[in-house]
């Protein structure tokens, strides 16, 4: 971890990883969606509608996975003051928010034909909506301060506090009665999805993860360059002043 704290070294590693991540993402997403949407079997009770799952479930996982990463990076940034950790968390937030929004929208589109409603205020759906709002709040907090170091600290604390929502999302379907069904993949008894449906789902999930790594490499690089440009501007401004 301390090895990665050096921005130049971090950038070198990310630049080396980026084309691989992009390639894996492309292959997995084409294979996963192609298999899932065209060749995988329909479900015994939901028939063709089940195919929304290939977008809905990996998006939900990404929304939570990216948030977990942001919370860890924020803790590292708060404790060890590693600037790269802070920038990685900041660069992750829009991607996490987008995946969470995709999850909410596809969930509504799936709920209408299967459950008979677009939306209900059950514990799973509500906690996922709260995750989306936490992402928005995190991004807004970064913009609310002029001084990036103060903004970073406030946002990191928000990210840590919001992490309490992750176990609530995961276990909401076990702790309370919900309209949403219990977990299908990450359960104590193992997956409850037939392999013909599970494999394309996992392919899309791997593809999304690789896409996120590709995007993170790009966005962290942009953040580092922006911060360097800001420092150069400051230096130029103070040099230009007389006296």
């Amino acid at each position, binding site marked *: 971890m301390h090895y990665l704290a050096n921005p130049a070294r971090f950038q070198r590693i990310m630049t080396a990883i980026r084309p691989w991540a992009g390639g894996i993402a492309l292959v997995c997403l084409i294979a996963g969606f192609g298999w899932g949407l065209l060749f995988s*079997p*329909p*479900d*015994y*009770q*939901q*028939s063709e509608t*089940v195919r929304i*799952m290939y977008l809905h479930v990996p998006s939900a996982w990404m929304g939570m996975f990216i948030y977990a990463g942001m919370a860890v990076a924020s*803790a590292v940034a*708060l*404790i*060890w003051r590693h600037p790269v950790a802070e920038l990685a968390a900041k660069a992750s937030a829009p991607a996490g928010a987008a995946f969470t929004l995709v999850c909410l929208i596809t969930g509504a589109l799936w709920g209408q*034909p*299967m*459950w*008979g*409603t677009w939306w*209900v*205020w*059950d*514990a799973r759906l509500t906690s996922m909506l709260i995750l989306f709002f936490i992402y928005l709040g995190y991004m807004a907090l970064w913009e609310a301060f002029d001084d990036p170091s103060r903004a970073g600290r406030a946002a990191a*604390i928000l990210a*840590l*506090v919001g*992490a*309490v929502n992750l176990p*609530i999302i995961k276990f909401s379907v*076990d*702790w*309370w*009665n*919900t*309209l949403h*069904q*219990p*977990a*299908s993949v990450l*359960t104590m008894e193992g997956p*409850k*999805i*037939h392999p*013909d*449906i*599970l494999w394309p789902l996992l392919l899309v999930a791997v593809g999304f993860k690789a896409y996120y790594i590709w995007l993170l490499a790009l966005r962290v690089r942009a953040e580092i360059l922006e911060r360097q440009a800001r420092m150069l501007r400051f230096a130029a401004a103070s040099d230009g002043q007389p006296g």
Partner: protein
Amino acid sequence: MTRKRRRLYAVLALVAGVGVAAALVLTAFSDNLVFFHSPTDVVQKHLPAGKRFRIGGLVEEGSLKRDGLNAEFVVTDLTERVTIRYTGMLPDLFRENQGIVADGRLNEQRQFIASEVLAKHDENYMPPEVAEALKKSGQWSDKPGQHAEKYGNAGNTTGKGKTQ
């Protein structure tokens, strides 16, 4: 080193504090966080007639009576039974032995007059052929008993629902 250590403890204390606070709040509001009540809740807690709430359970086999848009059926958690009456379109997944959630009120005869009926589906996904094969070989897990445990103990925070 000591400053880092101090910040580490501060972060750990923050996370632990927020976690405990959330756990206390969620436990305190547990009754309000459940999306529906089970037939056992409705019968044993004597929920008053006229109060709006949701009830969830399995549609009992052989209980569905349809007359145009009027439907009458029984939901059960295999412990207690409640009769539901509903006028309107039932969702596609609605059928006997299927989990449903209905929104409405009890009338004076302790029948539940629903204004909305939602279908609940389980967490199993498989191709139709596999489902057929499982039914033929007798390994089908869709027996009502296995599903009813999800509807039993509804809103009961001390029951097995927590320890599962």
